[in-house]
């Protein structure tokens, strides 16, 4: 019988670049565990008989299982277990909101020291990346069925990975010139280095997935025509249409959507301008509107581009902030200034059309709204002016309408999301599945992957029986 372990509540911290250094560079903030740290943290796990953490994981990773392997220094075993459920552990270990998924459920969370599941997941993935040879899994015989995956974000990557393994002929199409979806054009280098994403794409290509970039389905070729060539199609085109606030002055120079700002810096590498040719302005005073991960990423990017003052302007309070806790703390440490309960009302420009100041109102919280969060209410007469030379609007995205608009017969909701069967991801069109942000609206990496996995299962079933 196993002896009763004494509870170890010393969560092993992960080293980070000091905030006064990292706030001016684009290198990754978190440095990752050393092997010793990983083993020490893994040894804290109680190996619960009824592990609660697994319930919190949207793709049901065998969490105690992979952690046990790390504790036993069987790193190969741990990555194998992880990859059974999650094809992007290096990504998820970095960007999943573990604090509200697996870690919050961990029994040790009650004592304030949940197992650092995310850090361990990241460690296992990094260990694998350092190995000279990546072990390719066995691939089933070619079935002769052709599958097109549209969009190369986490949803598309999951479907492509799952279907290539069972022997289908998979081609992944991407509109931009680089694959990865939001992982490439949105989430900044300092949180998710480009090499992590390209490694995953390389791996898919090694497995035999064909990748076609610069291909906008619905423009380069209609979905209907693609159905003549492919036996089944998955749509994972994400939520790429930026919302604006619809207030006066939003088309002033110096006002950006989060997508524009991040795309310039990440996809177009404008932070290396003029070595690269796409420019980005080095603004001094920057206000970012919104309170999610996207807003934090913009604010921290602005700092790294040399801004003197960066503000987050959020209309609710700190309690409602949707960003991950870790990212909020990182942003605050780096010097981002938070204006809670504040709503931009008007943007004013100078004679050349450049943003000069933002008029804001103060808010107070009223009764909970449909989202369950307390509704912000404007306090009359509380207007005040913030002098500012840039404003980045990070208040959300809706699904990209190119495919729905060019595909009669594809059912979409009022919000523009594609309607699917919840259990299979099947759309209203024969032989077409969908998943990820295009179905749910902007959500998370892991949910997109979960949806991809579900759809892949249903697609495989269809392809095998047809």
């Amino acid at each position, binding site marked *: 019988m196993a002896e009763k372990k004494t509870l170890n509540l010393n969560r092993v911290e992960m080293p980070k670049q000091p905030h006064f250094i990292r706030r001016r560079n684009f290198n990754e903030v978190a440095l990752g565990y050393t092997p010793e740290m990983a083993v020490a943290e893994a040894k804290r796990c109680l190996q619960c008989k009824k592990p609660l953490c697994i319930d919190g994981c949207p793709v049901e990773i065998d969490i105690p299982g992979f952690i046990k392997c790390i504790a036993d220094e069987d790193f190969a075993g741990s990555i194998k277990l992880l990859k059974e459920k999650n094809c992007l552990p290096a990504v998820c270990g970095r960007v999943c909101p573990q604090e509200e998924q697996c870690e919050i459920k961990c029994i040790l969370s009650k004592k304030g020291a949940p197992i650092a599941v995310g850090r361990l997941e990241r460690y296992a993935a990094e260990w694998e990346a350092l190995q000279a040879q990546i072990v390719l899994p066995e691939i089933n015989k070619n079935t002769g069925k052709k599958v097109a995956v549209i969009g190369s974000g986490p949803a598309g990557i999951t479907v492509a990975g799952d279907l290539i393994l069972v022997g289908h002929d998979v081609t992944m199409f991407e*509109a931009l*010139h680089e694959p990865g979806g939001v992982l490439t054009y949105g989430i900044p280098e300092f949180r998710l280095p480009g090499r992590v994403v390209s490694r995953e794409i390389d791996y898919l290509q090694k497995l035999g997935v064909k990748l076609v970039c610069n291909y*906008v389905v619905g*423009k380069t070729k209609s979905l209907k025509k693609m159905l003549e060539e492919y036996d089944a199609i998955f749509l994972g085109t994400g939520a790429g249409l930026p919302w604006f606030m*619809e207030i006066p002055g939003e088309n002033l*120079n110096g006002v950006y*959507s989060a997508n524009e700002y991040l*795309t310039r810096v990440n996809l*177009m590498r404008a932070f290396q301008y003029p070595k690269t040719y796409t420019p980005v302005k080095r603004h001094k005073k920057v206000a970012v509107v919104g309170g999610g991960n996207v807003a934090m990423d913009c604010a921290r990017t602005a700092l790294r581009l040399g801004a003197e003052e960066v503000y987050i302007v959020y209309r609710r309070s700190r309690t409602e902030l949707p960003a991950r806790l870790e990212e909020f703390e990182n942003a605050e440490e780096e010097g981002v200034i938070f204006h809670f309960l504040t709503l931009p009302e008007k943007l004013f420009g100078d004679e050349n059309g450049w943003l000069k100041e933002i008029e804001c109102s103060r808010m107070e919280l009223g009764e909970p709204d449909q989202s369950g969060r307390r509704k912000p209410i404007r306090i009359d007469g509380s207007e005040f002016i913030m002098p500012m030379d840039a404003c980045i609007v990070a208040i959300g995205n809706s699904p990209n309408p190119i495919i729905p608009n060019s595909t009669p017969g594809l059912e979409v909701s009022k919000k523009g999301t594609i309607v699917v069967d919840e259990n299979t991801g099947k759309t209203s069109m024969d032989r077409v599945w969908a998943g990820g942000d295009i179905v749910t609206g902007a959500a998370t990496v892991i949910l997109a992957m979960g949806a991809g996995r579900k759809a892949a299962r249903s697609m495989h079933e269809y392809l095998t029986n047809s």
Partner: protein
Amino acid sequence: MFEIVERKMIVPNLHLLVVHAPDIVEEIQPGQFVIIHAGEGSERIPLSAADWNREEGTLTIVFMEVGTSTGKLALLKAGDKIPTVVGPLGKPTEIDHFGTVVCIGGCFGMGSIYPVVRALKQKGNYVVTIMEGRSKNLLYWENKLSEFSDKVIKLTRDGSYGYKGHIKKGEDIIRETGIKPDRVIANGCMTLSYKTTKEYSHFNIPVIVTLNTIMIDGTGMCGVCRCTVDGKMKFACVDGPDFDGRYVDWEELAKRRKQYLNEEAFLVHHSGCGGI
């Protein structure tokens, strides 16, 4: 990879680029554009289709060498490969039987108006084409345009060929010769679009102009191409690039276009025409 079939300077500073892009050519319509990205570190630049050959899968573009990225394109030669040509993007120019249509092309627009002229003629319109340039040596494709035009008017600012004058002169000729346009369509730089709108609005007909906003993705993802048309926010890459100039907020547009003037000037080797 997309193979370059031909690249040559057709008039000073304007280059013809023929690229093998069979998928794009199969779908492309007049008024649409592609985005070219010439590799690591380059910008993504929007360029309109000036012609295409569906049998051979080739797309023809006319571009002006104005800055770093177009400068890079100007160095290409047959057989070279570029990693990104994506499209066809944007909404096609509306083609119908309108009656009499005045088509105006200036600088690269003399090229991109050609498929529009051709399609309008094939729909049975009476097509008056106006070619506009600074000087005789900057006009091109007169034969191609004449083939599908009922009347071709040449304008040069120095009077070295055709009539002497600019957009206003073209409008004078239209009015004085009693042509009653049902629609005007103009392709070219922003100055041309703006002036066309100004001079032709009194006819109370649609004045369709292309808006060459700054773009990045060209798929509606970034919003940098936004402009105000009829009081509403539009994205030029997906809602345009054609708009009825009468409803465009030109002042805002002109300011937005100048956003990166300092940065571009820093990189510019060679400056093109007067207007941006």
